[in-house]
């Protein structure tokens, strides 16, 4: 029996994204920090305790800003998960801490490992699903075009594994995006449902743009 949920309409994997993001932040920076800021942007993983005094961290140290020094963007899909994105408007106070660059790296590591785990889990879910589904008389996984996409996917995942094992994150965002597009092709229309690969790909895109991306040369 498969451990995975093969129901067409249900999310196949529940790696508790919101809770995981929150725990990564707490584990690395402590419970009183409300967001990690990357290049003036942040992903909010829980409601702010006090909107008038927002405590976050970036590579320099602790950032404390008032209500008019940041802005939160509302999006219905993020809101369903209790998430929001925001950006700093400037004028805020910052307290230097030499350890924060290292902590930011630890936070990045946890995020990337989470993304890789989700991608590997979804790939396994699709392997089972495409083996069980029959089209034109044979399992979908045996179709030539599916096998080619599968091989492309394996190529990305092997590269991702190597990079993650070596703590090298320079092209990780690009590989995650490519792997997710290939998974979406294999998943078909269900990919658009909540908890499936397009939502996760979009969320990973936001996370990676804020915390992992290294510029526009990818």
């Amino acid at each position: 029996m498969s451990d995975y949920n093969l129901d067409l309409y249900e999310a196949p994997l529940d790696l508790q994204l919101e809770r995981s993001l929150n725990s990564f932040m707490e584990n690395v920076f402590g419970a009183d920090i409300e967001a990690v800021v990357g290049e003036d942007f942040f992903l909010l993983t829980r409601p702010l305790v006090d909107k008038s005094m927002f405590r976050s961290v970036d590579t320099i140290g602790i950032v404390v800003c008032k209500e008019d020094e940041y802005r939160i963007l509302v999006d219905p899909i993020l809101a369903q998960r209790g998430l929001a994105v925001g950006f700093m408007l400037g004028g805020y106070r910052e307290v230097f801490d030499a350890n924060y660059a290292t902590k930011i790296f630890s936070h990045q590591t946890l995020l990337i490992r989470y993304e890789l785990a989700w991608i590997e889990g979804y790939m396994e879910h699709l392997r089972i699903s495409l083996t069980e589904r029959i089209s034109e008389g044979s399992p979908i996984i045996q179709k030539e075009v599916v096998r080619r996409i599968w091989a492309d996917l394996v190529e990305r995942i092997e590269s991702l594994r190597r990079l993650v094992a070596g703590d090298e994150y320079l092209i990780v965002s690009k590989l995650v995006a490519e792997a997710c597009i290939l998974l979406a092709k294999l998943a078909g229309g269900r990919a658009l449902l909540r908890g499936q690969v397009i939502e996760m790909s979009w969320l990973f895109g936001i996370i990676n743009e804020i915390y992992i991306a290294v510029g526009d040369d990818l």
Partner: protein
Amino acid sequence: MSNLFFGLDLNLAEERYGAEAVSDIVFARRIALSIDNDPLGIDYYRFEPTITKLCKDRDGSCVERSKLAEIIAYGDAGVFLAYPNPSLAGGAIREMADEEQKKYFFDFIEQTHCTTFTGITEPQHGSDVASLETQLIKVDSNNYQLTGEKCFITHGFDGKIGVVVARIGSGPLGIQAVMLKEEDLEHGVQEGTLQRELLPIVGMRGTCLSRMIFNKFSVSVNNLLGKHLRVSQRGMFSLIKTFNRMRPCVAAFALGQAQAMLDYVKIAMLDSSSSTEALLRVLNAELACARGSLYESAKIMDENPLESASVSLVKAHITRLTEHVTLQLINHIGAAALCEHSLFLKWSRDIYAFEYMEGTSDMQKRNVSQEYLMRVKAVRL
């Protein structure tokens, strides 16, 4: 008065699509975020001029429809897909219905301004029509019963009229389309022979993607489509023509959306750096090239809707191009694209839906190669 509106430069919009298009674009852009938040909220706007225009369309050409689709999608593609209009069901009705059925269908939409649905895709076989499992079983000379599940149907939850395709016999000739009217749908829901469920989707939420489960749902013989046609022309044959005529419109939504994102970067993000200018110039050139192919293929569909290769090529190409444009822009602009602009954040979810509309890229590419190889073989013979 400012010519900037929700990230639109009205002068540029007029330059691109003509003065008469501006109001359609502005309206779609104005309600884009509210429809994304509450797709069924489109009902509130159903007598707006753009929707009236769409609901009056009975025999527009593929070129005309594709042009209007691109215009509205430049405002917002998700809004276009939320709009009440005959849509794909209208295409199936034009292809398969007799005159009385056509009059009923188009009169109903013109009067009620309702959304419509087309139920083809099934959970186990996708949109592979040859493998359909939904059954249409004859009960007596006047009545049939529909049993089976349809999934990923645009407006399957809220559409007041639509078309469902089912199997009435074995083989490719055993495909039958039926028109389902408002009273049939209401009766089915009350009797428990029809369940309609809105699916939780993350992109292009205006589609109101749904599932419909039929269990001995009553269908009158009068609602079977194509009785006046030869058996060979009723099912698969008519569906191929319907899909082919719809594909340029889907490519046009995608193209309008891609063009909107490009222009938005320049207008709303106020980015006029030389590297951005260079990127936009290249991407604009790619879109212009794709636009030429799109309208050429729409013209071919108006002349011969069975020539699948050109529309399949265009649909696959523009889908890929739209994804490429989006990723290039996000890569270039970085987190600002996603974290400062709600519209861009929404569009970055929406663009993935084009792949699944009217056939995936792999299916389109199969059409292209099959038809091309057949043409070569015919020339050699």
